[in-house]
């Protein structure tokens, strides 16, 4: 007799992901789907896909959704949530989308305490367009637009979205995690669940920033990309829970 332990969650459509081999987007997609399954809200959840590698997120999730213009996912989600407060809305955004062109939208959505959830994938680079410098690119990191490494004098400093957003009064849950080991994957799942609970309980805005690899544009194989993330990205972007007004998971 075989007992089924883990299989593809129902909230994923089963369509093959269009991500490169070893990209962490897939892990985070699965975690979001698992959380939605566990909370039993699939029929009442809407996804807002961004522009970037995860532009087809609405096809991978087995639920209704739309794509927002570049960076405007929190604004679109605000509209959806205000028009249908009985539904649950989440946005799934990358760093080029959320931290660059969409900074105004995310700041104000968080400050207004919109009851939406944001999943923020930070891989320190623009993935879809071919590895250009993102606001989150580390100092000294080589990209196609900073071939000699990012220089603080010319290109500024890496952008820490969680540290900016934690000051906003409307934020109910804010955490930064990674998914490089199975233990971290479980921690990230807990964080995503709490970010959704912040919305379900009506407390406020919830966001989880997930440090993620981009093996293709970093020019590494998937395993050394994870090592690089641990060694270089984690010291720059310290992990942790910045705001937690949700309390117990029950």
């Amino acid at each position, binding site marked *: *007799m*075989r*007992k*089924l*332990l*883990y*299989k*593809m*969650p129902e909230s*994923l459509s089963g369509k*093959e*992901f269009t*991500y*490169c*081999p*070893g*990209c*962490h*987007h*897939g*892990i985070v*997609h*699965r975690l979001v789907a698992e959380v939605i399954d566990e909370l039993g809200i699939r029929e009442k959840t809407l996804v807002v896909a961004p522009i970037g590698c995860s532009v087809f997120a609405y096809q991978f999730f087995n639920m209704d959704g739309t794509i927002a213009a570049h960076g405007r996912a929190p604004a679109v989600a605000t509209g959806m949530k205000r028009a249908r407060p009985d539904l649950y809305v989440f946005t799934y955004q990358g760093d080029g989308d959320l931290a660059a062109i969409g900074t105004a939208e995310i700041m104000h959505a968080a400050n207004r305490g919109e009851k939406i959830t944001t999943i923020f994938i930070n891989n320190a680079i623009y993935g879809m367009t071919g590895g250009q410098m993102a606001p989150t690119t580390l100092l000294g990191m080589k990209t196609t637009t900073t071939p000699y490494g990012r220089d603080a004098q010319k290109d500024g400093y890496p952008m820490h979205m969680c540290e900016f957003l934690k000051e906003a009064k409307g934020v109910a849950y804010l955490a930064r995690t990674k998914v490089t*080991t*199975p233990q971290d*994957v*479980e921690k990230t799942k807990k964080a995503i669940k709490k970010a959704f609970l912040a919305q379900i309980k009506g407390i406020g805005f919830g966001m989880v920033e997930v440090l993620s690899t981009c*093996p293709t544009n970093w020019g590494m*194989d*998937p*395993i050394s990309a*994870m090592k690089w993330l641990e060694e270089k990205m984690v010291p720059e972007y310290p992990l942790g829970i910045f705001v937690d007004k949700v309390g117990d998971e029950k």
Partner: protein
Amino acid sequence: MPKVKGYIEIDQERCKGCGLCINACPTKVIEFSEGFNSKGYHPAEAKYLDRCIACGFCYRMCPDVCITVYREE
């Protein structure tokens, strides 16, 4: 011999051969297949299933959700 025996299925057509499951597996059940799938990748293959302990690490790390994990009872 481990007390818990597990069994995994890998959807090799869906697999992109990134190797994250191979890296995560504590008992080294999985290896790259010598063959190709239709995408041209060497997919992961559960070669030593007798060692599987149903921990689910491969499932947790797989970015393409190719792996289904069972426990033998």
